[in-house]
């Protein structure tokens, strides 16, 4: 891991890391990755990737409407709303 990797990761995760902290974060994450390296050393040849730690199967639900309109409650805790919409800083794609 180098500074650029950390900065790119921070960007993807939408985290702000101050310039003077980047070196420290880089070091710490590298330490964590060293632990992952130990896992990688295990021979997993022929072992199917695990999708979930529980040996269980997903329950499915029936296609029936069970959720009422909760707009009022949800918008009461939103920073900004208008015409029933949640307002967010302008996004342009």
């Amino acid at each position, binding site marked *: 891991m180098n500074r650029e990797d950390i900065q*790119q990761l921070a960007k*993807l995760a*939408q985290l702000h890391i101050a310039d003077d902290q980047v070196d420290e974060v880089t070091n710490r994450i590298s330490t964590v990755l060293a632990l992952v390296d130990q896992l990688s050393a295990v021979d997993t040849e022929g072992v199917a990737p695990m*999708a*979930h730690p*529980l040996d*269980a*199967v*997903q*329950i*499915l*639900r*029936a*296609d*029936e*409407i*069970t*959720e*009422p*309109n*909760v*707009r009022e409650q*949800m*918008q009461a805790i939103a920073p*900004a709303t*208008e*015409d*029933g*919409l*949640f*307002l*967010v*800083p*302008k*996004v*342009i*794609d």
Partner: protein
Amino acid sequence: MEWETVIGLEIHVQLATKTKIFSGASTAYGAEPNTQACAIDLAMPGTLPVPNRQAFKLAAMFGLAIDAPIARRSVFERKNYFYPDLPKGYQTTQLDEPIVGAGHVDITLDDGTEHRVRIHHAHLEEDAGKSLHEDYHGMSGIDLNRAGTPLIEIVTEPDMRNAEQAVAFAKKLHGLVVAIGICDGEMSQGSLRFDVNISVRPKGQKELGIRTETKNLNSFKFMEEAIELEVERQISVIESGGTIRQETRLYNGDTKKARSMRSKEDSNDYRYFPCPDLLPVILDDSFLAEVAAAMPELPEAKRARYTGDMGLSEYDAKVLTGDVATAVYFDAAVNAGAIPKLAANWIMGDLAAFLNRQELTIKQSPVTPAALAGLTQRIDDGTVNSKMAKAVFEGMAAGEGDADTVIEAKGLKQVSDSGALEKIIDDVMANNTQQVEGYRAAPEDKRAKMVGFFVGQCMKASKGQADPKQLNQLLVKKLNG
């Protein structure tokens, strides 16, 4: 240089479930903003998704329709990116273990040739919400009603070579998902959205050129325009010495222009990983049997049935199966005893014209399939001739009852009783003695033409109700003396 275009499609199909893929909130279109967005859709802390069984069923039906294997085990992954219409910060989707494996869709091109488009796979995922960028004081408005609507994303192989093939495939796919009832097909409401991957290469070259992706086309016309525009652009870039950038593009159907949305270099690394909130979904034999039992007849099988036993032309079968509601109507009419060929003619002719004038859909037709069946029977057994049949149809359309009721009420019975016909003929001959003499004096080869005059007179006398075939026979016999 001669160029070859290579096209592959990704199609997002909204599944026709009542509720979302991971919550029990309604998916009905057109509701007030955010009235169908529950705590799960909004990614409130402490919520857990529970998948909708029906979404799996509809996705599996698509697999059967394209002759693809259905995965008995499928796994959801998180595709991570930040966008305000995706409250969780990731889209729950499938990657390595999608529900539908490889299949194919065969299309027929305008020149009659068949072309196979291979489907790489189709996976289940959730739709995002909607962002409205209009003026909210410099902010964007977010409506999360659509967030969590179940989708299948269908990914084709790069098997299309021009816009015509791509559009033919898109139309076929649209017809298919509507016919099997997994999608309402309302493209203007975003129920089906096409992403088109396009590249060009010198003809004969094996390796593919660099492709661009034009996203979110929601009409066949825009799709055709966008492909033609992009192919032209790529060729002109390359021919003037440039290179194609791998990028995502947006086509604007109003301005007929496309623009680059984002280039792949600064695109997201989605950092997929298995979703810890969801266990693997296992579909067992009884589930798959239920899916198979729910499969309606596929349009191709329907067409074969129409052109086979029923004896319809390829054209008739294509028109009737081109629209699900029309095929349902036709089948109902035939089940009610309609003569298939006659029913097909009426449905595509007078009924279609009438519904068009009244701005009604075939589902709203005041002439029921059973009523139309009755009319075809009365035409077939000679009770009414084609001209009278139109009057009967008008009566039925005006709500005057079924065919027999209208025939009775309007006195529209065709006269095929030979006694009655003979009387009409005798009267006409008695009133036109000169013409009768002229006929009898004429040489044999001229006579056939002269019969027309008498047919017309007799028809008029019968108020159009004479059986034309029988009238003709009797008339010739009498005229020849």
